[in-house]
């Protein structure tokens, strides 16, 4: 997806280039870039890409939205774009209209659960909720006696303990204590928390892949500029081979993430095949974030370790995104159980089904 071949991505890239330039943002200590960026994205209808027209969104396809997230990763975009997109998507599953403004989704971890009481109120604690502090509304997946429900909740009704992830973005704990939602509807048949985690995981995978593309790009550029021992460091074979490995990690992340996105965009249900794709993407992209990010830093030397340099905007975010919607360890255990349960002779048929 290095070339933008759809209008949604083109629009987004233009906005990112104008208002989310990593160097400009990095120099801005007061975060004054955030409001204009969010406003431009909102005016272009991008945060509600996955919400149909009749529910207040811009009705873009799943595929276009996924491509947009990949582009957002290439700019290490640090406003709740992915989160609002996911929230809008979740609400749309239950035909709930999306309000204006920033949103996020909860729970954001497969371990947390929000429960729905008989009186229609929601309770529970969700940890590591991205951008909860910036959100005007939460899109919530809750479990009650009759199964899963989807709710729109006014963010001011929840208690928020503020926190930051390793990428310095908000990752907060949200506690709902008998909160009455704005709207509550049953989730569609078969839609459960795993579905939501897989979708969130693929979103994060695409962002990680985008960040790795950018890390490869700036690392290659830097190695062609920096001189040491009287030659460009790109001429040292050890550096070349490190960058070749970074290209491999970037490629693996891109392939895994775009494959999973394509699988979801064309899926009727979240069956074992889609599960394999989405879980694999999160696992492999998280591994690539670690290995690839380490090489990008190694190539940059000390300058890449400074706050002044933009590398950390990508490297730390890619590491932070590993934790959202189930870490790679979580998905590896779950995928491993699925594989073991299907049995040895069903492994290859599953892999080859994709």
């Amino acid at each position, binding site marked *: 997806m290095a070339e933008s071949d759809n209008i949604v991505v083109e629009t987004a890239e233009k906005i990112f280039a104008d208002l989310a330039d990593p160097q400009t943002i990095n120099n801005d200590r007061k975060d004054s870039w955030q409001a204009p960026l969010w406003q431009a994205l909102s005016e272009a209808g991008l945060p509600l890409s996955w919400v149909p027209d009749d529910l207040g969104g811009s009705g873009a396809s799943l595929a276009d939205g996924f491509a947009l997230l990949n582009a957002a990763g290439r700019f290490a975009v640090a406003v709740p774009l992915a989160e609002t997109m996911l929230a809008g998507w979740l609400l749309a599953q239950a035909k709930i209209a999306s309000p204006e403004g920033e949103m996020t989704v909860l729970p954001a971890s497969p371990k947390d659960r929000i429960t729905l009481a008989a009186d229609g109120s929601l309770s529970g604690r969700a940890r590591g909720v991205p951008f909860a502090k910036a959100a005007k509304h939460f899109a919530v997946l809750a479990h009650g006696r009759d199964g899963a429900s989807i709710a729109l909740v006014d963010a001011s009704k929840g208690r928020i303990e503020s926190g930051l992830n390793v990428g310095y973005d908000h990752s907060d704990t949200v506690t709902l204590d008998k909160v009455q939602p704005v709207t509550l509807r049953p989730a569609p048949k078969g839609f459960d928390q795993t579905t939501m985690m897989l979708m969130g995981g693929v979103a994060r995978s695409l962002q990680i892949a985008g960040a790795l593309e950018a890390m490869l790009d700036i690392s290659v550029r830097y190695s062609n500029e920096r001189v040491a021992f009287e030659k460009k460091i790109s001429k040292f074979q050890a550096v070349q081979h490190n*960058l070749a490995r970074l290209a491999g990690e970037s490629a693996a992340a891109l392939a895994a993430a775009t494959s999973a996105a394509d699988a979801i965009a064309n899926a009727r249900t979240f069956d074992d095949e889609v599960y394999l794709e989405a879980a694999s993407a999160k696992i492999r992209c998280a591994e690539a974030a670690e290995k690839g990010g380490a090489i990008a830093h190694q190539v940059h030397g000390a300058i890449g370790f400074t706050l002044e340099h933009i590398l950390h905007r990508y490297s730390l975010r890619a590491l932070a995104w590993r934790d959202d919607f189930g870490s790679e360890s979580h998905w590896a255990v779950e995928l491993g159980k699925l594989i073991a349960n299907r049995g040895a002779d069903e492994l290859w048929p599953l892999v080859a089904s994709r």
Partner: protein
Amino acid sequence: MTAALRFDPIRLPEKCEQLRKEVRAFLAEEIAAGTFDPHKPNREDTDAPEFSRRVGAKGWLGMTWPKKYGGQERSFLERYVVTEEMRVANAPTRRFFVADRQSGPVLIKYAPEHIKMDILPRICRGEICFAIGMSEPNSGSDLFAAKTRATKTDGGYLINGTKIWTSSAHIADYMIAIFRTSPPTKENRRHGLTQFLVKMKQPGIQVNPIGQITGQYEFNEVVFTDFFVPDDHVLGEVDGAWKQATSELAYERSGPERFLETYYVLTELVRAVGPNPDTRSAEGIGRLVAQLHTMRRMSVSVAGMLQAGKEPVVEASIVKDIGTVWEQQLPHRVRDLAAFVEETATNRETLERQLDFAIKTAPKLTIQGGTTEVLRGIIARGLGLR
């Protein structure tokens, strides 16, 4: 972006799935008939000439080639399915694999018509085996340092010198080799090598098997002494082999054989841990499957791009780099995970025997067909670093 790597999410078309069923059914019959044991990758019967003919009779050799040469004019993605199913089943493909993947396409591109009409249909029927004569005692990765000479004589060339590490030379009917027809020039050290078709099993060629650390004898030293090759066996441009070698690499480097060589130990591990694995085993298996799935998607993507007429040389090199490193580490990761498998697991002995073989196989995987170092050099060039 300096590096626009592309991995389009290509899916195998519907017709591939029908073909896959046919291949699986065929392999199941062969296994039932005792042709090979899918649990024994270290079988001795690497030759399996009858199996080779039966695969040919199915139309699965040279399947992408023109019909007039015995091919089926099917797509590269269909060939992909046949290749991966054979590989996963541990089928004895040694006799036809090189001819089907590499030698046939070279002949189609560079051989005179009468040679194509003679040889290609026999490859398609699974009758003949090919070897590749690249490495020499003093030139491996540095292909263009080859010294084996082809000296012009009446009606052809006389070959003198030695090729080495030549897989299957002991059973091969033909070899496609590069020989030196001129010295390199100052401007171009790659100049002066020519690609030839060599008919094996003739006086003037001596094949000496070389034992491998696996205990097998699959590769050889091949000594040429005043061996005559006729003019019409020259493939392509005299002195210009360097122009012909690179375009094949994408095909050669990105196939399923580049990450499935030790796959069988993963299947056997899943069997050994059973349906209710502990957390450690589950996580280990989950990661390995995620990595495998990702590589396969990359490999299929490259196959699809090739089918679409693109030349994803860097992407193909990445697939081989990541794939071969993975299949090399796989037996060791499986060994780690198998450490706590119950002593009573029914397939424990099979797994241990397989691990023993896979661990011995592992070192060659990042050497054959282009070392990791060479691949990373190609990737670095693609990134604009050299």
